[in-house]
């Protein structure tokens, strides 16, 4: 090729590049988020349904709590306090067996149908009868397919009556049963108009909403976007943000860039590597929100070696809780050894927790259990942060006293499949509770109605690890606390349960999760609790 030919080619390429650059430069500057729109960056990989009876994902739960009002609200600032919701008031009989709710008058569903007590009763009955994800929230309190129609009734258009079979502690019962998605009041007529093959409208409601709340679902596309639009007639307060757009941004670094540029207002999946940069940026605020979620080790007593109480205790001395908290888990988790999270009713103070890294003590315990030279066990873990990091820490310390832990990372669905079927030796797991009360955790982790394999009590982690809590009298203690109406007495009962749990349980609770929410400083007034985010109160300056 002659040089002139080559020159022409290069010139053409240069011209093309120049044209492209000009085209790019002439494109409009990226639009920032409008003042009446709140844009969130979040990982929206999984969301199957909008039906409150079937919601299982944190993201959908949070969004739908801004679409549907429950009978009773958790307070904006203090989740332990209750506030009127669709029910403007309620009363409990002295024997704590009957609850009467007065349904707020004048509310209308988007269809125009009035909100009545019949809708409220039907919504609870539907949840139990459908027996999907949220059914456990009612079933745990004695509601069954057989009794729910008689137990939950509307005596007139504005009076809902709920009868229970046992006298539960009223604040606990109200908080656990009537503040979440299981207590959303649905438009009975509208939903049943879309019923198909006896599905209680589940198919239809999986893609839309039929309830009263500050927002309505406008667009819903898995792996893409979720958009809420303001309900201009909302009864509770003036809603300033007109539109909430949740964009699927799976990568934490990309979320940070979008936030810094002002293309999103809130980033929900910020990773620890970005914390420092966000904290340095005067336009951004990093909000650390302690959740009622745990990372913990479960030791299966189905394994002969791990049946030993001494061996199980040895594991509790193998974790350097404080060191991890200040390094790997910084801004991600706080050390917590008790089964009851900090911030929940009945939690013991952190100072009462006994464990720290003490290899000598651990060595002594495994020797006393008849394994002075150690042993070999498999440790199954989720493959995502921070499971491998915690596992490597435990593995390194265990190796120092002769315990060889073989780490087996896997997908979450596989991990929990093995956990639920008692098909493991040891593992690191996560758990989240949805009430700010000790009961939320102890009713699953320190309660095991029947430890036999054939019982298949898979909803109880205590069963999964084969912990015979009945032998320690803990089942009775948990049930007694559930019924105790004297608040102080109930608190003391939970303290006692935690002391036994700390000494005896085959669980090594290590960290309580911190949720990191990075926001633009223009976003104001957004109440954030461990359980809910009330977008209806947010505004932008």
């Amino acid at each position: 090729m002659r040089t002139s030919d080559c020159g022409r080619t290069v010139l053409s390429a240069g011209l093309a590049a120049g044209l492209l650059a000009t085209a790019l430069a002439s494109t409009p500057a990226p639009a920032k988020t409008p003042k009446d729109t709140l844009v969130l960056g979040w990982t929206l990989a999984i969301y199957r349904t909008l039906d409150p009876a079937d919601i299982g994902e944190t993201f959908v739960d949070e969004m739908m709590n801004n679409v549907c009002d429950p009978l009773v609200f958790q307070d904006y600032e203090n989740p332990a306090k209750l506030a009127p919701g669709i029910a403007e008031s309620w009363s409990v009989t002295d024997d704590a067996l009957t609850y009467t709710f007065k349904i707020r008058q004048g509310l209308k569903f988007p269809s125009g149908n009035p909100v009545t007590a019949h809708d409220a009763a039907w919504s609870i009955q539907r949840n139990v009868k459908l027996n999907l994800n949220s059914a456990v929230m009612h079933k745990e309190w004695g509601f069954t397919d057989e009794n729910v129609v008689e137990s939950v009734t509307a005596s007139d258009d504005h009076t809902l009556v709920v009868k229970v079979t046992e006298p539960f502690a009223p604040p606990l019962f109200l908080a656990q049963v009537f503040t979440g998605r299981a207590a959303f009041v649905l438009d009975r007529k509208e939903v049943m108009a879309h019923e198909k093959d006896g599905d209680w409208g589940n198919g239809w409601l999986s893609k839309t909403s039929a309830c009263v709340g500050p927002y309505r679902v406008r667009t819903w596309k898995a792996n893409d976007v979720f958009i809420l639009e303001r309900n201009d007639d909302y009864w509770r307060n003036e809603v300033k943000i007109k539109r909430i757009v949740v964009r699927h941004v799976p990568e934490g670094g990309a979320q940070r860039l979008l936030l810094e540029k002002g293309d999103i207002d809130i980033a929900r999946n910020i990773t620890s590597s970005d914390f420092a940069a966000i904290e340095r940026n005067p336009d951004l605020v990093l909000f650390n929100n302690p959740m009622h979620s745990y990372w913990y080790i479960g030791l299966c007593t189905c394994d002969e070696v791990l049946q030993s109480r001494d061996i199980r205790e040895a594991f509790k001395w193998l974790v350097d809780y404080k060191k991890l908290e200040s390094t790997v888990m910084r801004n991600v988790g706080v050390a917590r050894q008790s089964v009851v999270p900090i911030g929940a009713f009945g939690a013991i103070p952190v100072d009462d927790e006994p464990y720290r890294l003490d290899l000598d003590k651990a060595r002594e315990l495994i020797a006393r259990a008849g394994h002075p030279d150690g042993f070999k066990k498999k440790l199954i873990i989720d493959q995502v942060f921070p499971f491998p990091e915690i596992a490597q820490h435990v593995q390194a310390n265990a190796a120092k006293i002769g315990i060889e832990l073989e780490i087996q990372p896997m997908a979450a669905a596989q991990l929990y499949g093995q956990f639920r079927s008692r098909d493991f030796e040891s593992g690191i797991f996560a758990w989240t509770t949805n009430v700010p009360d000790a009961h939320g955790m102890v009713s699953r982790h320190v309660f095991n109605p029947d430890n036999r394999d054939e019982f298949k009590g898979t909803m109880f982690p205590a069963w999964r690890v084969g912990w015979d809590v009945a032998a320690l009298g803990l089942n009775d203690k948990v049930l007694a606390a559930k019924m105790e109406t004297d608040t102080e007495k109930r608190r003391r009962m939970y303290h006692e349960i935690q002391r036994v749990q700390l000494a005896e349980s085959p669980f090594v609770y290590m960290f309580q999760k911190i949720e990191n929410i990075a926001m633009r400083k223009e976003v104001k007034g957004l109440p954030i609790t461990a359980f809910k985010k009330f977008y209806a109160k947010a505004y932008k300056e």
Partner: protein
Amino acid sequence: MAVSDRDIEPVGALADRAVRRQVWLRRAGAAGRLVVSVFVTLLGLLALTFFIGRMLPIDPVLAVVGDQADQATYEMMYRKLGLDQPLYVQFWTYISSAARLDFGVGTFSGQEVASDIARVFPATLELATVALLVGVFLGIPMGVLAAVFRNSLIDHVTRIIGLIGYSTPIFWLGLMGLLVFYGMLGWVGGPGRVDSFYIDIVEPVTGSILIDAALADEWDIFWNAVSHIVMPGSILGFTALAYIARMTRSFMLEQLNQEYVITARVKGLSNRQVIWRHAFRNVAVPLITVIALSYGFLLEGAVLTETVFAWPGFGQYLTNALLQGDMNAVLGCTLVVGVIFIALNLLSDLLYRLLDPRTK
């Protein structure tokens, strides 16, 4: 009996008709064999994916009901998903539904798999097409120049670019691209297909935001979408470019050593004519396969690019489906990938016939 001229066909015409019939029969036979082979390939692909999927130790029920569900709820969902049936029954149920283009409901998206794929695939198609255009329009000239100026600076630069394209993790490249061109310089749009302001404004017709915006006469959105696709398209196109440039160079070197090239030069043709009209025309045929394969891989799902750039495409959808053990979605995607590769192979065969006179 009187016989008219019309009743008597000349021997030549009869022979022509016989030949035409033979050609037609041969073509019909070839088409029939093609249909059977496509059917067997897709069936085999589905069977393999289905049985491997069922052997994976991932529990699809847990992905639906969550870790905290009680056993009654778990078992109800187990039956609802048809997992209590023998494997061959499950497979037959799936195949017979798939034949009606019903791929079931995705357990992690809660939507019909067919509608999910129809939604995510155009996003990937759009991205892959831009990437392929970058790869072809830059990769081919680079490959040709590298071959013509063998061992020169141009050749070395092309090889280095190719090496970087092959060896640099696309995830890192994507993040760096975002940081520099979006974060620091502000030349391009950020992650996502358009800015938040423009989301959900254009009614999806084709699923391609560029085409839909143009059809709707929303030119602000169109240009915004262009600014968003430039970066992921270029990053993805860079890997295609590396492959196409390397293969083009290799094909061209082979042709430039042929005697007909020397003859063409002796005839006094210009370098441009020798290279582009003679040598490159012979390279074009094998290059079609290279381009078709590149396109296939790009369409199959550029999951990492889609993750970094928050591109709601096919790759991310398939990866999520695999991680959640959502077999309906995995099988639907497998079928789509199979059809893509078969279609691209057919297309390249067709182009071979058009471009290569020897195949006529």
